[in-house]
C-alpha cells in the first residue's frame, strides 16, 4: 500500500521532448509533516509540483496526493490541496475582495470566517487593486487563497522568492502557526537550504531531476564533515566510503564525507602524510556538497 502518507511519489519520470527533466523521482511525505523540497533553479522542482497537481502528464511512474491520483483525477486533487504557484500572478485589475469572492466560488469547502480572520492577520487592503499590492502583500494574498478552503495538504512552490528578510521570516512563521500547528501537511519548495532548515521536518535535495538526498533535517548537519588532508603519494581518497566530494589543490585535499565514523577517520589518517583537520559545514556548504560534489569519481589518486 502506498497511501498512509499525505504525498507519495514512485519512480516518477518526465521529459520535455528529449530533455529528461525528472529521472525516477521517489518521495514519501508523512501526514502532518513539513517537507522541504530543495534544488537549484532548473532542477525540476516546479515540474514535480505540476505533476502532483495533475497540470502535467507523467511519462511513467505514479503519485498519490491525499490518496488521489492527480494523473487520473486532477480535479479532486486540486480541490483537496492548497497550492501557491511560483511567482503567482493574479488578475491585477481585480480588487482584493473581488478576487477572494471569485475564488470562493471554486471551492465547496471555502470558509468565510477563516478568510476574514486571515485578512486581518495578513493586514491585507481589501479595496486595493491586486496590481498595486507590494510583493509581500501579494504573497500573503496568494497564501490566503491557498488556505481558504482549509486544505489538509498545502503545496508551496518557492513561496518566499523575492521577499525581503522580514517578510520571509513572517511567512515562515505563518507556515508554523497556521499550518504545522493545525496538523496540515506542507510541501515547501525552495532553493535556499538555510530558509527551509528551521521549518522542515524532512528535506529532499533534487539535482538535475534526481533525488540526491532525503533525510531528517536535524541529521542532515550532524553526520557530514569535511577534512583537510595532505595525502601520502598514491593514496586514493576517492575510494573512501560515503564520499561526497574530493577537491585537490596545491598538494592538499578537501574531502567531504556524508557519514563520518571512527573508521572513516582511521582510514583518512592512514592516507594522510601530515596532520588532518576536521570541520563541520554550514548549510550552504552542505547543499553545495550534495549538488556539485563529484563523489570522489574522476579524481586521480594523489
Amino acid at each position, binding site marked *: 500500500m502506498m497511501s498512509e502518507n499525505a504525498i507519495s511519489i514512485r519512480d516518477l519520470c518526465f521529459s520535455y521532448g528529449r530533455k529528461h527533466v525528472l529521472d525516477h523521482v521517489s518521495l514519501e511525505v508523512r501526514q502532518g509533516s513539513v517537507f522541504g523540497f530543495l534544488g537549484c533553479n532548473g532542477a525540476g522542482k516546479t515540474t514535480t509540483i505540476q505533476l502532483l497537481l495533475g497540470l502535467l502528464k507523467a511519462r511513467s511512474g505514479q503519485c498519490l496526493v491525499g490518496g488521489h491520483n492527480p494523473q487520473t483525477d486532477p480535479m479532486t486533487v486540486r480541490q483537496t490541496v492548497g497550492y501557491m504557484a511560483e511567482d503567482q500572478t493574479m488578475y491585477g485589475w481585480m480588487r482584493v475582495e473581488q478576487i477572494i469572492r471569485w475564488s470562493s466560488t471554486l471551492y465547496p469547502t471555502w470558509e468565510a470566517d477563516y478568510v476574514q480572520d486571515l485578512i486581518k492577520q495578513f493586514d491585507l487592503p481589501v479595496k486595493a487593486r491586486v496590481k498595486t499590492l507590494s510583493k509581500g502583500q501579494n504573497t500573503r494574498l496568494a497564501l490566503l487563497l491557498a488556505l481558504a478552503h482549509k486544505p489538509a495538504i498545502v503545496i508551496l512552490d518557492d513561496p518566499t522568492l523575492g521577499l525581503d528578510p522580514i517578510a520571509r521570516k513572517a511567512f515562515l512563521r505563518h507556515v508554523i*502557526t497556521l499550518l*504545522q*500547528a493545525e496538523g496540515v501537511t506542507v510541501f515547501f519548495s525552495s532553493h535556499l537550504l538555510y530558509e527551509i532548515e*528551521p*521549518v522542515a*521536518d524532512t528535506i529532499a535535495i533534487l539535482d538535475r531531476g534526481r533525488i540526491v538526498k532525503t533525510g531528517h*533535517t536535524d541529521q542532515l548537519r550532524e553526520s557530514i564533515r569535511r577534512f583537510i588532508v595532505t595525502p601520502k603519494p598514491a593514496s586514493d581518497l576517492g575510494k573512501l566510503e560515503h564520499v561526497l566530494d574530493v577537491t585537490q589543490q596545491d598538494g592538499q585535499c578537501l574531502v567531504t564525507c556524508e557519514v563520518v565514523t571512527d573508521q572513516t577517520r582511521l582510514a583518512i589518517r592512514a592516507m594522510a602524510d601530515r596532520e588532518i583537520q576536521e570541520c563541520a559545514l*554550514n*548549510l*550552504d556548504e552542505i547543499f553545495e556538497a550534495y549538488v556539485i560534489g563529484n563523489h570522489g569519481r574522476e579524481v586521480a589518486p594523489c
Partner: protein
Amino acid sequence: MFVRIEPSSSVPIYRQIIDQIRYQVATGVLQPGDRVPSVRALAGQLAVNQNTILKVFNELRNEKILRVERGSGTVVAQSGQSMTLAERKKTVATLLREGAIQAIQLDIPKEQAVDLLQMEYEIILSEKKRSQP
C-alpha cells in the same frame, strides 16, 4: 525569553536553542520557577518547526533544567533539583568530553585546557552575580 538563531552556523538549530537556554539558566537570567513559553509559542516566535522545539524541551527536561508543572506549563527547575551528585557529574562529564576532544585535536596542553575551564567558570559566575538583584 530571548533566543537567537544563527542560520549560517554549523551548529544544528536545536543545539543552538538548548545552549542558549542552558546559558541563561546558568547565569541566572532565567531563575528557578520562571515560566518558559509553550512549544507552540516558542516555535511561532522563532519561526522554527515545533518538533525541533519539542526536542529541545525534552532534552532540557531530561537534564532536569526544565520541569513540567501541572497547570502552569513548563518552568525552570531548581538547579540540580532531584539529581544526585553522581548524575550531575555525569551530565557535566559528557559535555567536557567534547571539549577535551577538541583541545587534544587542536593541540592545547592539558594544563592550559584546565585554565580555560576555570576562566569560563569565573566569567559565568561573575555574570550570574551581576544578574542577581
